[in-house]
């Protein structure tokens, strides 16, 4: 979390310039997938491959969480047999994967995005609708960006 603190401290010298929203990709149904199309606003900030890697990894995590197979059947039948009371003491597979996703996003923010002045928000904080990427700029630079927002970009839960 040290990079977030750096980002928060840097807010004195860095300001939120814009936000980019990566939309959901529904071409394979209602399973959770995000579009890997590279947004034009990030062209000068980050390499395309890094961005695509992040989105593809997230898509793989979500596919793993929503996979319908032996384990999900077992979980479903066991839960039904106990009138779903087992979920009071057991974590579901989806929740376990969500924790992995949160850790992955934090790691990506620290290593890849924060050094480039970007911040990726966990999609679960946005209703699993979008991946929000906040773009920060140094306050010293002439930054009258079109999309500057007055709301603070850090979306701590």
């Amino acid at each position: 979390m040290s990079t977030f603190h750096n980002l928060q401290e840097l807010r004195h010298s860095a300001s939120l310039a814009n936000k980019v929203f990566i939309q959901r990709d529904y071409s394979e149904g209602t399973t959770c997938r995000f579009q890997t199309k590279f947004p034009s606003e990030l062209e000068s900030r980050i390499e395309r491959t890094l961005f695509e890697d992040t989105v593809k990894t997230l898509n793989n995590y979500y596919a793993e969480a929503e996979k319908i197979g032996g384990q999900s059947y077992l979980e479903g039948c066991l839960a039904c047999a106990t009138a779903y009371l087992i979920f009071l003491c057991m974590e579901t597979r989806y929740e376990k994967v969500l924790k992995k996703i949160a850790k992955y996003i934090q790691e990506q923010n620290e290593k890849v995005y924060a050094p480039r002045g970007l911040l990726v928000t966990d999609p679960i904080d946005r209703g699993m609708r979008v991946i929000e990427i906040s773009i920060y700029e140094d306050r010293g630079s002439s930054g009258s960006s079109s999309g500057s927002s007055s709301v603070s970009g850090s979306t701590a839960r």
Partner: protein
Amino acid sequence: MSLGQGPRSRRSSRGRIPHVRLGNRRHRRSGELDCIGLCTNLQHRRAETPRLHKTNKKNSWHARRRARTMSAVMVTRKVRKWEKLPGKNTFCCDGRVMMARQKGVFYLTLFLIVGTCSLFFAFECPYLAVHLSPAIPFFAVLLFLFVIAMLLRTSFSDPGVLPRALPEEATFIEMEIEAANGNVPAGQRPPPRIRNVQINNQIVKLKYCYTCKIFRPPRASHCSICDNCVDRFDHHCPWVGNCVGKRNYRYFYMFTLSLSLLTIYIFTFNIVHVVMRSVDGGFLNTLKETPGTYPFLFFFFKVLVCFFTLWSVVGLTGFHTYLISLNQTTNEDIKGSWSGKNRVQNPYSHKNFMKNCCEVLCGPTYPSVLDRRGMTQEDLTVSSASAAPSSSSSSNAAPQTTKTTAPLIPNEHTPDDARPSIAASAENSDSSKEGFPPKRSSPARVTSPRVALIKCI
């Protein structure tokens, strides 16, 4: 730093910046005051505070106060996110339970199930356990508990509500729409906001929700009763007092299925009981027996309830089994989305009965994306207006207390009611206000909020 509170408050204030805690325990659970700005003239008012107890009638005091208190106090209140959620849901147990506003029919459902089963356990089970088998009441109890568990799970859980778009996201989408529409000549209506996506070689139209400011995902729909977009929206069921959507559809189906089984079970053993007693002593005699053992009215009530429940609930279970086998929702069925006209087919169906059933009933348990119990900040600009503090604080007390007790408070009203009362309580910690327990009435305590506020700087 805090107002004289017991160990509980000290425990929860660990690691936090000094804050002012006002109100009783229930108030504290839902909000705390963090002072981040202060009137410089509060120290003057400290001397005036004892007068507040006595009277507010002196015009000169009012005039002096108005002259002095020109600046505003900015306070930040920490609240749980459910208190700030838009929509027409009611929340109980500090955000753990989520239901629709109208709950009358839900209470009726509970009454019918519990009432009928209680009569069955009271009047039939003793006879059947003795004359047939004790397994009969045992399975009846298991089935009854399962039905109640499924009902409560369906009613109390988040059906899959999609949170509304935050302002930046809404603006981003608007910009995209405007870019896509191009220049619309003045006077002409802009084209409808629709996005087309291709799913399994089928074009699906995603509609824009003007309330939630999002393009609805496929199969999502906006429930006008709850005023929320719900993912995989099936229908709004008044009998369970909630929407039925992606997250609670399986519980709803298990509820209808188990209720059908329970109804058939009770109905069957009602008949068996009557037959066995008739064999023993004649049919009419059986019905006329003394109220202590076998009241005629109760029997009639049970048979009536079971009969109507049988046809409606069993029919509903059959209908939902049909929908599950086709991987359709009630909403899609009613609208005829995949009725086969113009070669339109259901793109979500696996074309296999077992696969569809397994996906719907044994699929992953989706988490709620509404973070109901997370904390968020609410910024309040507290002006110097202290008009009618007692009435506003009493309105503060009412929603505060009922918020955690009776599930009847629409959450959207609470912050507005709380604001003026917090304003009032920040400036006049008059202990005569309802929100404060009597023990805060000692004069030493009255000045403490100001002391605490000053210490906060």
